[in-house]
């Protein structure tokens, strides 16, 4: 789909949190309350499709999203984006944005080109856990587009990661940031059009994470 050619977002200025399948929304909702962001939580996408930004939270196992639910989600999320809506996927929610996942063993939402693979395929690591620095020195990214989400954040602070799969993107036009993993670079932030994904959990990344989440929630498009 053409992410760069969408109409202006004229939706209601409130954040939608999509509780798909069995994903855990607790930490995210708690964080949104800490930064006083108004949100609407629903497991029914049409309840929140009038929100100007929607977050796909992410804790859980991709396998638990049924094939039917995945294709329903894919249809809904795509038409929301084509109406000018903004999507932010966190961790599993970020992985969902790509075309397929080794964890699910099948197709996912197909918004970003690329697939989600086992970390151990490419990095000497089974599970990426803990606080890591983002590498602002490298990667294909445009300062203006991404840095606004880091306004007020010390770029040397760390963000919290907890994942066994990573997003192997396949589109030069996706702006991205990377982290260093055993001397190799792993892409962990993806941005194109009105779609943002982070492999890290801002809601678990202390003050800097909250600051980032507030920027993503409130920054005009």
């Amino acid at each position: 789909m053409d992410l760069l050619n969408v109409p202006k977002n004229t939706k209601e200025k409130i954040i939608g949190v999509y509780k798909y399948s069995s994903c855990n929304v607790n930490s995210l909702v708690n964080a949104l309350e800490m930064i006083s962001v108004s949100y609407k939580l629903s497991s029914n996408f049409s309840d929140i499709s009038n929100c100007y930004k929607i977050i796909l939270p992410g804790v859980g196992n991709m396998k638990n999203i049924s094939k039917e639910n995945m294709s329903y989600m894919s249809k809904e999320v795509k038409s929301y984006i084509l109406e000018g809506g903004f999507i932010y996927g966190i961790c599993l929610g970020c992985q969902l944005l790509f075309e397929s996942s080794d964890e699910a063993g099948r197709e996912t939402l197909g918004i970003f080109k690329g697939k989600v693979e086992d970390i151990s395929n490419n990095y000497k690591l089974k599970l990426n856990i803990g606080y890591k620095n983002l590498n602002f020195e490298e990667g294909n990214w445009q300062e203006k587009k991404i840095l606004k989400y880091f306004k007020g954040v010390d770029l040397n602070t760390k963000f919290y990661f907890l994942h066994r799969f990573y997003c192997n993107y396949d589109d030069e036009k996706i702006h991205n940031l990377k982290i260093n993993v055993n001397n190799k670079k792993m892409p962990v932030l993806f941005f194109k059009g009105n779609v943002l994904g982070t492999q890290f959990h801002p809601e678990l990344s202390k003050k800097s994470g909250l600051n980032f989440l507030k920027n993503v929630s409130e920054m005009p498009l």
Partner: protein
Amino acid sequence: MRIISRLDIKMGTLIKSVMYDGVRKIGNPAEYANDYVESSVDELMLINNTGSLYNTKLDLKLIREIRKKKALPISAGGGITSHEDAENLIQSGCDKVVINSLIHKNVDEVVKIIDALGSSSVTGAIQFEKRDDNYVTLYEMARESTGLNLIDTVKMYKDIGIGELLITDIKRDGCYTGLNKEIYDIISNFKDEFPIILSGGFINVEDINHYKDILSGISISSAFHLKKLKVSETIKYRNKIIY
């Protein structure tokens, strides 16, 4: 390396054992948790450490209270006997669950938990002690033997798909002896297989330096609870040598 504050909770009270025995009362767990988070600790671990022994559960209301106004990872465990228990902890605001006894009593149920939550959200706890020249592992608050040694226990956890390890030296628990250095090579052998958290006896910040290349985290309880060490100073030391 994460500096993890472990809070052992029994019937709503923060407690602390010595060598997994002789439990003493410390105070209100929510107040201690708030202090640690204020001091920028990396992660909280809430453990109902007499849970498997007495078949009790963590109070979910307390978990929800502790979760409030905290933007950091929280794991919880102790007395988990079913995947419903694990789901309840996650739905109450925890990001990971910690399991030991159930792995040795009903491994099929643990596999169900891993399927439901994803292996990255399941921490396998191992309690070990040195007997003769062997490291034996135990469960049910170190009362029952698993019949396995430390290395075989780690291998077994790997086979069932556990995401992260919490390894505790029972004889150092609550004793301020410093972390066990003898098992450095064992941990080193598994460092690419698991993120490993070591616990038991932490008192010297220099232990962070000793273990900086192979540990993913250190779990600390008494040294923080009884003010032998400040969280902020521990984090400061870690930042100095690792970042």
